[in-house]
């Protein structure tokens, strides 16, 4: 349903993604694991189309030149050159790394901004859904986003992404800087989202341990190329993965 074929991304002469192919069926959770500089964020930017925007800006500024190769398909349609906001309309929603919530808007406003694309009634339902999913947000509806704790901000970011009725939800490092307790809440929420709405989720993480139980299929990125892929059992049984990501 959502598929990337032979993605290659160059930042000037540096190869950030090398021949990465990823496939995501409807209602599956796909995990992408890798250390820093493995190309996770670049992959997310490419899948969501944000990279086209970065590319444009760099061109205007005379900075680094970004070249893209490969194809991205969504529901059988080639979306490689489609702009990020159009992709969002089609249902590919990115929940960016480091949350990027709107710090000066309240929690409610943040959610409403996320709901720009959906209809009024849906918005109401979605807000209710998000608040049930992450009850902690209920207590802070009127607070400014910038004054929430890191974990609450992450919940808000995921909630905001959900408001746009995604078909594919891209979560870029949702566990960044969260305590184990909050990690559990976020991970639990993620699998609930999939179960309730049948949304496909692609999730990138450095720490495989908390994420791997909920994924259906996983990819290991290393230095921009996909080294290994497999179902959760295959990944967990692989000795390299064990030593690198589970410290066994």
């Amino acid at each position, binding site marked *: 349903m959502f598929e990337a074929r032979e993605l290659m991304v160059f930042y000037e002469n540096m190869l950030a993604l090398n021949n990465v192919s990823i496939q995501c069926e409807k209602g599956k959770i796909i995990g992408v694991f890798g250390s820093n500089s493995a190309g996770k964020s670049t992959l997310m930017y490419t899948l969501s189309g944000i990279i086209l925007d970065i590319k444009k800006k760099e061109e*205007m500024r005379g900075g680094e030149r970004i070249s893209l190769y490969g194809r991205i398909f969504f529901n059988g349609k080639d979306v490689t050159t489609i702009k990020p906001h159009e992709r969002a309309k089609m249902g590919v929603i990115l929940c960016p790394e480091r949350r990027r919530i709107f710090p000066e808007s309240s929690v409610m406003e943040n959610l409403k901004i996320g709901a720009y694309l959906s209809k009024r009634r849906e918005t109401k339902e979605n807000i209710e859904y998000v608040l049930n999913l992450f009850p902690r947000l209920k207590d802070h509806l009127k607070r400014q986003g910038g004054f929430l704790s890191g974990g609450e901000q992450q919940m808000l970011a995921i909630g905001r992404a959900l408001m746009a009725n995604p078909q594919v939800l891209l979560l870029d490092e949702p566990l960044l800087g969260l305590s184990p307790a909050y990690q559990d809440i976020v991970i639990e929420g993620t699998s609930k989202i999939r179960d309730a709405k049948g949304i496909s989720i692609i999730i990138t993480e450095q720490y495989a341990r908390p994420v791997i139980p909920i994924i259906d299929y996983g990819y290991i990125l290393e230095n921009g190329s996909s080294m290994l892929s497999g179902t959760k059992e295959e990944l967990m049984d692989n000795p390299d993965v064990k030593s690198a990501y589970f410290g066994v």
Partner: protein
Amino acid sequence: MNREMMRKERIDRGIKVRTERIYAISSYREILYLLGPRVLLIVGVMVLPLALEFAPYWKRVVNITCVYSLLALSFDFLANYVGLVCLGGAFFVGVGGYLSAIFNVYLGLPVFLSIPLATIGGAIFCTALLLPCLPLRGVYFAIVTLMYPLLLTRVIEALNIMGGTNGITGLASLPNEYVEQYSIIIMMLVFMFGMRRFVNQDIGLVLRGVKDNDQSVRASGINITYMKGLAVFIASFIGCFGGAYIAHLYMWAGLSLFALDFSIIPIASVVIGGGGTLVGPVIGSFILVPLSEVLRAFGTFRIVIYCAALTGFIVFKSEGLMVYMQRKYHQFERWVKV
């Protein structure tokens, strides 16, 4: 498929890599590569007055252009190295010009004292007035710098001090034509290369840090208000020098020194020349100011041409001339297989 898998690659020229470290320079070719553009610029600017020997009007234009390029330099420094958007070119010019007139006419100091004193005094004055809005980030600084020239104009007008609307007349001119021309050209070159040095010193790095993330700089134990104050001092120093010079060039200091032109044209030059390069703004003003003189023949229609040229630049070459030229000079491109 085959065509698709080719990629245009940008690589530093070998000679650039070889000359990056000073000890590696071993041939005239490499020295030429390093010095060529700099010498070309210096010689070009120096020869300009001689080349225009029989066009006295254009010699004037060169002088004014140099003042504008000083202002562009100070704008570029503040905007791209300190993160302060300064709309106060007119403020600097006005303060420098009026102070110089006061020193020269009221106190009777000679030119070679009044200009430096006005430069330093003006820089202190401007910095002191701008100091209150330095700890803040955001638009405050831009607005305040835009307001001060208006405020000072009205104060002078209303209180009828310093010549009122007539301005201060009877400033001494510079000794002779050549001193007049070369003093500004040499000072412009000195400021330009000096600033290029300066922004790569430790203090320049700190200033760039202030631009990127002021909280981290604070966390490193640096007082950013002091740093910004210093940067504003330097920028207004450059601007006030231009103002003092212009007052002596016209032998008159009047309200038109606070004209908005001095704030706007430098910004346009920075856009055309390429922000953050410090040389770009100078080149930009050497294009824009003469262009606007040439277009004078078209009357009011010149604004249309001028604006169209500017907009075209922003749309098609928004990186700026200097960034583009630097890239072409240091790097070449070739097609490679992916």
